[in-house]
């Protein structure tokens, strides 16, 4: 549901809330989920993002987000140059996805240590976004909450160990989803929370028995 500052806002660099502001947020989300600055980014644009993306600065906006900028950063138009200065390689090309929203991008990012991540996300209007897939697994979250993404083994009780850590840390869960690739395989648990998570709490969850890795996206402060 929209709050009044979705109506009067966002404060953003133009020209389009969906094609520019939303694109910055998709890039920033991929960066956050990777856990730091990508050195390589492969950006595939679908539908209207591919059709009119260049005129709306969607390409520069996505790169700006990957560089850690926010939708109101006046450096967004210069993001290609800044990426070159910071040594982030990127390529951008059109793609046709099946059953995807017209404003969809697939971002494949890699950090200096070689860690890779693929995020498929959609700009759903007014600068708001939705993440649809992480590494090919279906997810559904928007970045309007603090979001914890935990990849773990499909074993009994792991979810309760994760949520127990949150309970002990005084963190309330707003929304939660869990999706596994197959029985006994990898599970992606997405937890949206009302409170911010302290770094040590995120770290503790990362060291739990069956957790492979954990990433944390903190919602934009105004």
């Amino acid at each position: 549901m929209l709050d009044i500052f979705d109506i009067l806002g966002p404060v953003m660099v133009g020209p389009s809330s969906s094609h520019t502001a939303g694109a910055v947020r998709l890039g920033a989300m991929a960066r956050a989920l990777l856990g730091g600055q990508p050195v390589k980014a492969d950006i595939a644009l679908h539908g209207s993002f591919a059709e009119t993306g260049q005129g709306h600065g969607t390409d520069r906006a996505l790169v700006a987000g990957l560089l850690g900028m926010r939708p109101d950063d006046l450096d967004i138009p210069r993001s290609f140059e800044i990426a070159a200065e910071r040594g982030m390689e990127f390529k951008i090309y059109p793609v046709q996805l099946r059953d995807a929203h017209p404003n969809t991008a697939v971002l494949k990012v890699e950090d200096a240590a070689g860690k890779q991540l693929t995020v498929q996300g959609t700009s759903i209007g007014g600068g708001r976004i939705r993440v649809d897939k992480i590494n090919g697994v279906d997810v559904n979250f928007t970045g309007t909450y603090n979001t914890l993404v935990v990849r773990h083994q499909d074993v009994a009780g792991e979810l309760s160990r994760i949520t127990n850590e949150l309970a002990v840390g005084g963190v309330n869960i707003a929304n939660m989803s869990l999706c596994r690739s197959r029985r006994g395989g990898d599970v992606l648990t997405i937890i949206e929370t009302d409170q911010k998570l302290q770094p040590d709490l995120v770290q503790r969850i990362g060291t739990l028995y069956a957790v492979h890795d954990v990433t944390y996206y903190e919602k934009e402060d105004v």
Partner: protein
Amino acid sequence: MALESMQEIFDKIEKTQKPFWQVILDTDMDEREVTAEESMERMRYTWKAMLESVDSYQSERRSVSGLVGGDGRKMRDYAAGTESLCGPYLQEVIATALSVGESNACMCKIVAAPTAGACGVLPAVMVPLYKNGGAAEEEILRALYVASGIGAVIAFRACIAGAAGGCQAEIGSASAMAAGALTALRGGDAAQIGNAVAMALKNLMGLVCDPIAGLVEVPCVKRNVVGAVNAISCADMALAGITSRVPVDQVIDCMGDVGRRMPVEFRETALGGLAVTPFGQSVKEQMNQRS
């Protein structure tokens, strides 16, 4: 926002004996779990960003296609040199709407209100009033609460995106928000605010979204002018006691219905209207050749 109709806002006003803006402030506090001060500070930040979007205008800037830029300056130069038809306030409203719309097309910082394409309408009516001493900051902030409440109701009952309901949903909604805000600012009561909103939406009903080459440039920038001027005339009509024969919530629902039934060619796809005129097509070809 939890308020689903203008009638619900009117009922709350009646029940609590609070003004329109305060009902919206209360709802925001409730929903986002913030204090009145926190909500107000965020509104002040939004207003400052709006002011800055006007003050940071540079007439030399041009948009990606080269079609947009410099008209805000032209309007000001003209008004400075001769007596304009529309007089001091309205000529500044026109210049401001053009300036902010152009800044948006040139990737400068603006406030989406309710969308980036319609970002010129609210600052166009508010900033000239503020600068000529016609309204103090606190009055403007209250008026912005009124505007956001109206926008939230329209977003809930109909739509505010060109892709969903055409330009009537973007410029039309912005115009309705501005009309209601101006009416509140000048002391209009809840019924008058509702009438201003209804009239503003009715006057722009059916307006299609037909951006050349899919860019937020032509005709978007100049439509911010019509949204702003329409808002002022509707506010004045409402303050004069003129009423909308069709109740405001019915007008909002009707706008949503017209939007849903609007062919997809007229909903931001650049497949109809001005986008497919020979001129529009030639701009699109030029853009394609560049990429």
